[in-house]
């Protein structure tokens, strides 16, 4: 397998999920730590649908729609719970999701996950190979980025920022805050679903460990490093964070040290950025 291409593809997939998180955490100010769970639902939904014989575009749409709905449902508590309280709630949701992935064996395959997820084929061209898949993931990221850009520059995008900055003032201006929050939660969920489905296709194997709480934290770290609220930030972050394990392999370290060192590196990066560069490389402070 081509390592460089795999790195690009994974970074692109995580950039889509980082954009999903950016909508919630950066733009509207709903501090969610369960985006990996939503991504997981997208991955499982796609895998199950496609293996049940549903064609690729339909399975993809199904995953996206399901995640949009689910994200709206899981964001609902944020309408009543502010800041820190919602973090705890979404932490709980993440744990529940992992438990469901692990224990609903009949559907999710339990801890052994789902293997042999087929890649789509178009006129004899299989997206099994990274050389081909990279076009799919690049196209998806381009589409997601363009949509993000269009959304943020529209009057809707401006209103979303206003709601984050002062919800009461937005209400006093007659804005339908609830409807707007639910709308952006749906968009965010759709992005996570797209990311999850692409992940399932590319890896052709998924299990609960790919969508655990540490993945949610990793996505947040990407957002902190790249910078919240900007398109560039959400794309830069994943490319930098996913390069860390690659860099570590360049150092001739004993294999048993690589895992712990990777976690240590992520932790040091997260704390350093929050202390010295809270706006990230190309964004704003969360």
């Amino acid at each position, binding site marked *: 397998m081509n390592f460089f291409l795999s790195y690009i593809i994974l970074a692109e997939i995580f950039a889509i999920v980082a954009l999903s998180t950016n909508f919630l955490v950066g733009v509207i100010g709903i501090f969610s730590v369960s985006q990996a769970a939503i991504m997981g639902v997208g991955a499982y939904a796609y895998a199950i649908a496609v293996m049940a014989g549903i064609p690729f575009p339909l399975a993809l749409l199904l995953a996206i729609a399901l995640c949009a709905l689910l994200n709206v449902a899981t964001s609902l508590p944020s309408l009543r719970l502010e800041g820190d309280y919602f973090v705890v709630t979404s932490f709980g949701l993440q744990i529940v999701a992992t438990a469901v992935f692990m224990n609903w064996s009949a559907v999710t395959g339990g801890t052994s996950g789902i293997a042999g997820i087929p890649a789509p084929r178009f006129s004899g061209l299989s997206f099994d190979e990274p050389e081909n898949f990279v076009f799919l993931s690049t196209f998806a990221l381009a589409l997601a980025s363009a*949509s993000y850009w*269009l*959304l943020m*520059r*529209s*009057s*809707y*995008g*401006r*209103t979303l*920022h*206003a709601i984050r*900055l*002062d919800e*009461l*003032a*937005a*209400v*006093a*201006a*007659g*804005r*339908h805050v609830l409807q*707007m929050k639910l*709308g*952006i939660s*749906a*968009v965010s969920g759709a992005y996570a679903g797209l990311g999850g489905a692409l992940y399932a296709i590319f890896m052709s194997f998924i299990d609960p460990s790919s969508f655990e709480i540490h993945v949610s934290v990793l996505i947040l770290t990407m957002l902190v490093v790249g910078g919240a609220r900007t398109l560039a930030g959400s794309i830069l972050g994943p490319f930098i964070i996913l390069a860390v394990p690659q860099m570590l392999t360049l150092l001739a370290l004993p294999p048993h040290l690589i895992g712990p060192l990777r976690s240590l590196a992520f932790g040091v990066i997260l704390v350093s950025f929050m202390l010295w560069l809270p706006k990230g490389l190309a964004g*704003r402070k969360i």
Partner: protein
Amino acid sequence: MVHMLQVENVTKNFLGLRALDACSFSLDQGEVTCLVGPNGAGKTTVFDCITGFLNPDAGTIMLNGETITGMNRRKIVQKGIGRSFQNLRLFEELSVIDNVIVCLADDSGNDPITAILRPFHSQKILDRKRGEALKILERVGLEHKADHFVTQISFGQQKLLCIARVLATQAKVMLLDEPTSGLSATALKNMVDVIRQLSAAGMTLLVVEHNTKIVRDIADRIVFMHQGRVLASGVPGDVLERRDLADIYFGGGN
């Protein structure tokens, strides 16, 4: 005669504290009414009740003869009552013009489907809103600051922006909470001019104001509040001359 806004026997309690006690007064179209009274008189509570931020325990509030008591906040804004806040509550990371665009009564284009799937239509809506917002900024003399950030304009200009935001909601009745507090002499004169122009254009205004000189300058009528009650209302000459009210206002009397 139907008043533009009528507040009738409005009462509001907070955990046993009577913040408003059977308050009654009315506003007529195109008039500036100043709400005066010492701190804690219940002026902001009156604002909150009229705009639906608080539900009165008793009493009715009518806009143009229609009861609006208990309506939700958004509905009340759509009916034509807009408010500013004592602590401004501007959207500080947005530009001056975006602060106005976000507050426009026109809600079109405020959904993700239009923004993503109909980009050209969405852009057209934004251009139209920008034009509308610029006209509103002209009314308060801020059009030359349209693309500045809120943090880059002076305090006086920020207060004018608050008024522009209320104008954007197409309010027929404007409730302004201390629009002149903390302003320099020039900014103050500017604000008084803007309030007069709005009134001349037919706007109904209820203004919380502490400075009696400004009250004399702008008020057509005065509502004097103390401890949740309306003690007096009438033309400035009558109310401001009353010795007993002056004692309450400047301390001492109770």
